[in-house]
């Protein structure tokens, strides 16, 4: 009643960030390979690492789901470390063997890991050498997905960023959509934008190497994911112009994202409304049905995929939830500010992690829904909390209008399940 009104109107963008530096319960960037290798159909991801890296990939991917991987691990052995074998020679041999077995591969990513970074194995030099050796058939790139440098979805960022310097130059005014989304979602986005008369539209990453987009001073790009900070920087370096907007989750996010692009391309209001009116209405309806179980409930985000901030914005503004804490592995203010600005101040915004302390906070707050990684979900369920495992948000089509209801459904299912179970 007697709260000063200026505090009420403040958004999360002005809120202090709780910075933590303790034990982090997160995946490393190698995990991104699991979806990247499905998206880029003539690419192979060769991790140069340890048995742990190989084990992580198959555990996170679920060895039982993907039987035909376009990824593998070149496992470093004692003799590679002791200098008895020249690691570069060994790598050349393994790459040659791999490429002869897989003639369909056009792009090979050498992916750095914690051990390869620590022993300072120069994968960039290796990539240059191997590109020369296998030109023109295969292009060899490199990036690091190591846990000491990248967290979970940051691996995709590192991968896309590694591709940007090699993209052909173009002076054409083109819209570039950046981020590896499921084809169905990508097609929807392109469909909506084309219907407004925007084009040509290109996508990074392309499904195949020969479809790689060009980039130059007249390129404008919009990020599809909030974790693409390095890719963003690389694109700017090539002269491309960024369109900043909230990320396209939910009806509101999708509309704001499309509107920012429409404005850049001078699309008039009438056209924008004509194209978006029907899917907007559908999205609102779908969300309101799926979000019924969520209204008035509280949510707590553990840091995981970097999607936490835009998703918290969606849950609080479109599903009627109250956020208690929104944790992200790291916060790239330049990218998530538009989402933070839409969220009224209130929740704790935290960056980094000290998992035991954060668990203490979650236990004390007893949120109605806790969004967390696979390592924490069952233990928290056993303590009586309802959880949503965050990795599903990365593996499921959740962007744009037609998936907005599904997105709300991912959060409401555990809540509804808790309500119907009587055992």
């Amino acid at each position: 009643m007697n709260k000063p009104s200026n505090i009420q109107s403040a958004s999360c963008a002005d809120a202090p960030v709780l910075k933590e530096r303790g034990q982090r319960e997160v995946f490393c960037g190698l995990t991104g390979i699991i979806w990247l290798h499905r998206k880029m159909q003539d690419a192979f991801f060769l991790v140069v690492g340890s048995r742990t890296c190989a084990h992580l990939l198959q555990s996170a991917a679920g060895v039982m789901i993907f039987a035909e991987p376009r990824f593998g691990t070149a496992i470093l052995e004692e003799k590679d470390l002791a200098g008895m074998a020249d690691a570069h020679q060994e790598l050349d041999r393994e790459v040659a063997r791999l490429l002869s077995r897989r003639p369909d591969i056009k792009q090979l990513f050498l992916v750095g890991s914690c051990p390869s970074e620590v022993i300072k194995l120069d994968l960039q030099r290796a990539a240059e050498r191997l590109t020369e050796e296998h030109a023109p058939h295969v292009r060899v790139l490199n990036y690091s997905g190591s846990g000491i440098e990248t967290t979970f979805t940051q691996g995709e960022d590192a991968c896309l960023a590694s591709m940007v310097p090699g993209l052909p130059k173009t002076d054409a005014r083109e819209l570039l959509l950046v981020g590896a989304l499921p084809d169905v979602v990508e097609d929807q986005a392109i469909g909506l934008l084309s219907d407004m008369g925007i084009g040509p539209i290109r996508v990074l990453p392309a499904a195949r190497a020969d479809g790689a987009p060009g980039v130059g001073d007249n390129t404008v790009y919009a990020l599809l994911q909030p974790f693409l900070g390095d890719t963003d920087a690389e694109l700017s370096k090539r002269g491309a112009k960024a369109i900043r907007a909230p990320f396209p989750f939910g009806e509101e996010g999708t509309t704001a994202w499309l509107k920012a692009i429409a404005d850049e391309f001078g699309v008039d209001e009438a056209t924008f409304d004509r194209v978006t009116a029907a899917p907007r209405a559908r999205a609102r309806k779908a969300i309101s049905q799926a979000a019924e179980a969520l209204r008035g409930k509280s949510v707590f985000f553990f840091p995981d995929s970097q999607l936490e901030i835009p998703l918290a914005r969606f849950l609080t503004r479109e599903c009627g939830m109250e956020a208690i804490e929104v944790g992200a592995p790291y916060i790239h203010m330049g990218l998530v500010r538009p989402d933070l600005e839409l969220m009224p101040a209130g929740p704790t915004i935290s960056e980094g992690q000290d998992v035991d302390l954060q668990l203490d906070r979650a236990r004390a707050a007893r949120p109605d829904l806790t969004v967390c990684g696979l390592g924490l979900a069952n233990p928290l369920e056993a303590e009586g909390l309802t959880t949503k495992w965050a990795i599903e948000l990365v593996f499921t089509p959740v962007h744009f209008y037609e998936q907005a209801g599904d997105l709300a459904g991912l959060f409401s299912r555990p809540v509804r399940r808790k309500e119907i179970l009587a055992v």
Partner: protein
Amino acid sequence: MKLTVWTYEGPPHVGAMRVATGMKGLHYVLHAPQGDTYADLLFTMIERRNHRPPVTYTTFQARDLGADTAYLFKDACRQAYERFKPEALIVGASCTAELIQDDPGGLAETMGLPVPVIALDLPSYSRKENFGTDETFYQLVRALAKPMERTARPTANIIGPTGLGFRHRDDVEELTGLLSEMGVDVNVVAPMGATPTDLTRLGAAHFNVLLYPEHAETAARYMEKELGQPFTKTVPIGVNATREFLAEVGEITGLDPKVDESRLRQPWWSKSVDSTYLTGKRVFVFGDATHVKASVRIAREEMGFEVVGLGCYNREFARDIRALGKEIGVPALISDDYLEVEKAIEDASPEMILGTQMERHIGKRLGIPCAVISAPVHVQDFPARYSPQVGFEGANVIFDTWIHPLVMGLEEHLLAMFREDFEFHDEAGPSHHGGHAPRPEERAHTGGQPPAPRDIEEPKSDNLGSDVMVWLADAEKELKKIPFFVRGKAKRNTEKYAAEKGMTQISKDTLYEAKAHYAR
């Protein structure tokens, strides 16, 4: 450097985690980068554990490497002790921390913690998960178990079961019951369920039951030498192995090894006429050495199968498995290379695979039924129901598990008789398995999209030799009438027969001549 697609075993520190997570009151401080925490999900998701593994990771990052990672480790140790108040700590490094050489053991020792701190030295670049379990348990036993007075009644320790083990939970229960029927009490089960304090009481048992040599053989040998406890050599998986195990326990304790077998149904199930169709089924057995050894024996003696291939992925037991291969006249494959295993299975073209979840995938690709007998595990290997592998109930469970993937006796004949039936045709698969989705390559071809490139080719069996051998139209038509689960073998045999006879063309007659030639 070795290219790996899938791995049978994780790194050795995951083995240490399996010991720590199986136990109570023990905490593991692991010097490891962020990302190595993925290992928690093995326990919380695959095994559905309702608590976090008792592991504190230092999760150092690149920016820490320039500064003091040793300080990070000591901090993590102190905090872990204060928060969890364990009875003992184990400390060690994962693959990356091994490279930065902070010496977790030495660091922890200087901290003066009021509980035993056991340092683990697990070489990540040369050893694997099973070494990790065995070595960690051995180090714990060496640090905590001491000679002591034996219990008045005959008692045994059950050693080997860990977290994330293949049916370890139920095996322990079954074995405890068996021992109890013989009049032997269980002193300590370890690592699974034991506290560090329990380990100090290991010496009170009269002997050890070495349930899984992969995880506890080094400890068993240590206790034999230092505590004077003999250990059992037979792993009681299968009817005959269980009886032999009981006889062994009888010899050690002087007790009568005769126990009530009334709940053992396997022998009659195997003898009853419905099982005739199992006779001589050609099986390929692959997994960890303990389960492979047991399964080969069950397959041959208790199911009436023919073992046409065998092998294990854990090199530590290569000698045993090679010896077993020699004994039954089948060369043993010792490999942790998934593609090599797949090749061997394809070459042997068995009618069934007894393998791990990896071989289940190989089977799916090659169209060969597979029953899972060993780790590495999957969420399906942790059933809600009681389903041991050990003892008499284990024998019953194994019988059911192994015949489930097969097309059953009469159905096999019906498929052969009515192979043109639109719904009862051979691509439909065993009728007790429910619906079958169209195969992905069919979808890809009809969906307008080019088929995705694949790492592992579709059944190569159908193409084998076709560049040199020509199938005449009538022979090809006849081949299609053979049920799918034996078609690959029929084709291979015919081609082999034709090649031996120096033929380049295969007619319908060649097909039946080959059939007669290979008739058993």
